[in-house]
Each structure stands twice: as C-alpha cells, then as structure tokens.
C-alpha cells in the first residue's frame, strides 16, 4: 500500500473564544514507516495537529485521514487503540503498577492474562527496564526517564501501526534525553513504526526525523528532510538554525568552520 498513513487535507481548527484559527489550511502527508517531526515554538499548533490525528480534537473544516479514512468516520475508540500516544509527563496511571500500565490497551482489547504478561515482559526488555525490578513498581517510585520508557512501552503494547509523541523527552535532563533519543531512533527503525513526533528542539528533530515539518502560527512553513531543512532559506527555518549555531559557537569556540555569520 502506497497511500500515506496519515493525511491532512485543508485542515483548519479554531475555537470560538479565539479569533485567529489555531491551525489554518494544513496539508500534510505522513508516509508509512517514516518519523515525521513537527517542529515549532510554543503555541504554533503542533500539539493541536497531533491531537487531530487520534480525534482528541476534530477539525473545524477539512479532513484528517488515517489509513485513508476520515477521523470523523472512525470509531474514536478503535482509532485510538490503533494509535500509540506518548506525552511529556508520560501520563502513567499513578494507581497502577508498571505492569498494569503497560498492559492497559491489551487488557482493554480483551487479551488473555498470560499473553498480556508475556507482552509486558517483552516490552520492558525492549525499552531497557529489568522486569524483575520494575514490573511491580508504581509510577511514583520511578525516575523521570524510567517513567518515559514505561510510557513508550505502554504506547507500543498493542503493536499499533502509528505512534504519536508529544515532546516525550521534554522534561528530562539532557543526558537522559540524549540516551532516550538514540534508543528511540534505533527502536522505531527496527520496528518500522510510523511516528509523528512533536518537539521544539531542533537537535532532537534532526536526530530523529526522517522529515521535519516546521510550524509557525498555525501554518506549516516547510516540510523536508533534515539535510534540506538545514539548507533551506525559509526565514523561520533560518531563525531556528541560527539558534543552533549560536549555541554551538559557545559550546565549541575552537571550530573554525562554524565561525561567524
């Protein structure tokens, strides 16, 4: 099948209280197997875009197609169970153990207990957590990085074709973030999942994205591969790239190739 997994067609989303639309005239296709990163500053509409995919929101006009079918025609429950969702604070259920958190969607789908247990063990191994040590813990007893690993495992539990990730590593310290990023890149490549990944961090976008979609004020300014993104002369893209350069200047003053503007 060659048709894109997710497709936005002239999508506008607005709320009555705000004059300007949050998303306007968005057209975007997400191909199977790719990781599309939505990049942009706070309030640019990237999270809203994500929430339109699993029908947490519905477009004011236009259509969002998932597997060729408009989200309005999907049963929201089955749409969401086919879509893994990871958010910044992980959103783990504090009253469930790690095991129950990860096994949540399989349990909702009515899997047998034994099968759920095996799947949870598999996923814990996949995200690098020792089952014997972690399965029976509560989220309150985990570090931020461990919680985020559990969040990813939970999103993968029922083997959904599509993953939606909303700044999943945003609240982590830089070291943990870096190691989770590379593990995720490796994982998504291995599992061949399609993912939409929201971030405001260009480095993260460059590291993880097969394509980067830059959003500004509710509009998609640019979509391209990381290489072409870096060479783009779109003003918003340039602004992002400048911040990257400034930061690297300070981090690495000795590098002559990246000297002045």
């Amino acid at each position, binding site marked *: 099948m060659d048709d894109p997994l997710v497709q936005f067609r002239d999508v506008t989303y607005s709320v009555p209280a705000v004059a300007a639309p949050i998303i306007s005239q968005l057209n975007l296709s997400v191909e199977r197997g790719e990781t599309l990163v939505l990049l942009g500053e706070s309030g640019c509409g990237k999270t809203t875009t994500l929430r339109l995919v*699993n029908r*947490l929101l519905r477009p004011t006009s236009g259509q969002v197609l998932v597997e060729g079918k408009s989200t309005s025609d999907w049963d*929201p*429950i*089955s*749409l*969401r*169970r086919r*879509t893994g*969702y990871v*958010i*910044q*604070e*992980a*959103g*783990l*259920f*504090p*009253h469930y153990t790690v095991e129950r958190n990860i096994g*949540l*969607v399989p349990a*909702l789908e009515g899997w047998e207990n034994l099968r759920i247990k095996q799947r949870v063990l598999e996923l814990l191994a996949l995200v690098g957590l020792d089952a014997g040590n972690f399965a029976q813990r*509560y989220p*309150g007893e985990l570090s931020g990085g461990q919680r985020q690993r559990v969040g990813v495992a*939970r999103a993968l539990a029922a083997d959904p074709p599509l993953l*939606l990730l909303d700044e999943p590593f945003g609240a982590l310290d830089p070291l943990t973030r870096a190691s989770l990023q590379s593990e995720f890149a490796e994982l998504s490549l291995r599992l061949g999942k399609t993912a939409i990944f929201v971030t405001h961090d260009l480095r993260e976008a460059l590291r993880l994205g097969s394509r980067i979609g830059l959003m500004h004020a509710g509009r998609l300014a640019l979509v391209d591969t990381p290489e072409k993104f870096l060479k783009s002369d779109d003003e918003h893209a340039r602004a992002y790239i400048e911040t990257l350069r400034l930061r690297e200047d300070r981090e690495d003053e000795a590098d002559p190739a990246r000297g002045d503007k």
Partner: protein
Amino acid sequence: MSFWTFLQQNWSEMLTLVREHLGLVLISTLVAVVIGIPTGILLTRKQALRNPVLGIANVMQTIPSLALFGFLIPLPFIGGIGARTAIVALVVYALLPIIRNTVTGILGVDRNVREAAVAMGMTDRQVLWQVEMPLAMSVILTGVRVAMVISVGVTTIAAAVGAGGLGVYIFRGLRQYDNNLLLAGALPAALMALAADFSLGLLEQRFSVESRKRLSILSKIALAAIAFVLVLGVYGSWRASRSHTQPIAGDKRLVIASKDFTESVLLAEIVSQMLESRGVAIERQFELGGNLPHDALVAGRIDLYPEYTGTAYTAILGHAPITDPRAVYQQVEREYAERFNVEVSVPVGFENTFAILVRGADARRLGLKTISDVVPHARTWRAGFGQDFMSRADGYPGFSRSYGLRFAEQPREMDLSLTYIALASGKVDLIAGNSTEGRIAALDLVQLADDRRYFPPYEAVYLVRKEALTRGPVLSEVLSRLANAISTEEMRQMNYEVDANKRSQAEVVQEWITKKGF
C-alpha cells in the same frame, strides 16, 4: 450521683440511644453517598449544571437544623415525626460535602493522566471507573468523612422531632440541669464523631496514591471489620426504625406528644399512663422542640399534646395578649375548632405563666417584691431570656415597654433551661422563667409579682384532634377526670422531683396518679 453510678444505672438505655444515633448517622450517610456521588459525577460531565446544583446544596446546608425539621413535619412521605424525618434532614446536610468533594476529586485528576486514558482508547465509562474514581477516591472519602462527622452532630438535634439518639440525653440534661445526662449524651456523640473521623481517615489513606502500598492482611481485616460494623449498624437501625414509625391509617394507637420541657412531658405522661391503664395503646412522641407539636397535631401526625391557653392565643393564633382568662380560653376553644378541628380540654387546674425571677439574695437586699421594684436597678443589670420569650407577642418587647424597663445591655438570648443556671451563678441578674419550674426554690430564686398584669393567662390544657375523640369514650373520660385536677403546688412538686431529684418522669407520674386515685 457520680457519672459512674449514673452509667451503671442507665447503661441499657444509653446503649439504645447510641444505637439509634449510630443508625441515623449511618443510614443518612449511606443515602447521601448513594445520591451525592452520582450527582457529583454528573456535575463533572455537565458543566452547565455544576454551579446551580452546588449552589442549591450550599443553601440547603445553611438552613438551621431545627427550622429544617419544622419545614419537613407537614410534608407527605418524607415528613412527619421520627426517624424518617431526621434522616431526610441529615441527608440534606450530608449532601454538600459529598457532592463537592466528588466534583473536586474528579476534576482534580491530573490532566495528563486523563488525556492519556482517553488517547489510549478508553471509553468515558472506563475513564470514570478505572481512572477518575480510583484517583479521586481519597478526596471523595474526605467528603464522606466530613458528612459523617456533621451527621453525628446534627443527629443530636434530631431528638427534637422524636427520632431518638443521644440528643435525648442532651436536651434532657439541659432542661434538668443535670451534668450526668449532658455527659452521657455528649461524650458518646463526641467519641462517635472521633471514631468516624478516624476510621474513614484510615480508609482514605488506603486510597491515597502517595501512600499506595499493597494492603496487608491486617488492614484487610480492619477494613472488613469496619464494613461489617457498618452493615450491622444499618441493619439494626433499619429494624429499629421499622418498629417505631408513624401510625398508619386504621392504626388504633393514640399518638401523644409533648414539648421539650419537663412539665409538658409530665402532662403528656399523665394522660398516657391513664389511657394505658384503661387498655388504650399509646405511642409516645415526647420532647418535640419549638412549635413542632402544633405542626404535627395539625398535620395529623399526633393526636394530643399539652399546651397553655396563652401560648395558643398569642404564639399560634397570633392575637395581641389580653389578660382575661375566660376570654382567652373561649377564643382559643372556638378558633381551634374552626381552623384546626382540634378540641381544647377543660383547663387542668394550674397556670404556668412567665415568672420574672431574680436571685433571692438580691430580692432580700433590695427589698424587691414586684417587677416595678426592679425598674430603678435595671439600668445596671443584665437580663437573659429564652428564645421564645424574646420573640413572642406577649414576650420581651411588650414586657419592657409596659414596665419601662431598660437593661445595661440587650438581653442575652439563650436556651430557657440555661437561664436559671445563668441567673443563679450571677451571669445575668433577671430572667423570665416558668412559674411552675421546680428549680425556683432549689436555686433560691424569687418570683416578682406581675403588678401591672402584663402577662396573659397560661392555663394548662390538652389539645386533642376531634377525630381521636371519636375513636372511643375512654379519652373523653380521662380528660374530664383531669379537669381542674392538678394544682400549681402539685405541678411544681412533680417538676421538682424530676428536675432536682432526678427521678424518672414515669415514676413521678405514677405516684401522683395513685395518690389521686385516677
């Protein structure tokens, strides 16, 4: 009598009251939970309803409890006298904390957690039961805990509508100036409140996410025990409430009520015992507060209660006070027949008028004999009056005007039975008591003569529903025997036996009936 001996002697009665009290609290809390939690859940789904409903619950909670009982008495189905009315009122008070905490608890669930649950493909029902309710449970339980502690307190007032419970001891203790009774009522109520607070607090901790641990065997047993006691209590009080619900149509029992002071109880007990010895089945609904006996009589919930002509004339019929006893009696008799279909018995023989009382020491020192003698001293005096006296037409406003009395400050308004103690202990200098009060002599108080004849006559009579009189000749026979049968001295003596000598009302009444040969 020491508190300890008192407990030994009244142990079984006290246990009955504790059981009644606990039953009222548990049933009403249970009903409030059953209504309140679903309402709270609904309010988290329907935002437009939230403020109006919470507003109504808020207002309901501000209604003073005795007033609420008053509203409820004439209502069909939920009203009347006894446990059912009390439970309705208790539920009304318990609803607000439960609804409010359900709403707060559910809305307080972490946004991320709720969003994750929805995005995971949980249905609204699953989000509610698997995520929101478990996470809100400790907050909801706090609401239940608050409701329960409030109920323990309000239930003490339920004694005023004949619902029983520890309030019976508290009201009686206040009237009879008996600290043992007060303690025997207040102490178990306080312990009950603490126990409810503590045990629900334990339960609450079990549900709190922060301290989440797997339940140990021991705490499982503890929780099971709490649940067992709850079930037992609810069952027990259900049985108890079935055994004294109101008479239904066709029931031949006569329901006899009294107001909430000793003399009224004694008068009601006299009729009750005389009827019982003549083979009539009686249900006693004694010690009803405020104007509840009147409301209940008019509503047909009770058949008879003792009243005073002056009270009926001014407080109930709303006439300006006059001083001619004949005129008052005839007017009351006629209007009660026309308006309420109620018969007024021949006066039983004594009057219980307001007695303006001062300390004996003051009376002797200043040579006080009449109320007019007080006027020169009043400017430095403080007065204390019952709520009744402060508000009624023949009470304080007319009284002070008629005598030109002015006190150092606005008179203190307090419970009537407390005014005697307040006067004797020097907290106030003048009170308006009852002329047949047994403690007048015991506390060395002196009654001043009403030299301007301000107070209307207060002849004791029985008010009887005409319908009750048609059920047989016995009631009429008993009432005619009681016509002019009780002198002021006899009444004061009986009051004194109960209030000062702490003897039981039934015993004192029986003695009097035997002596009279009734």
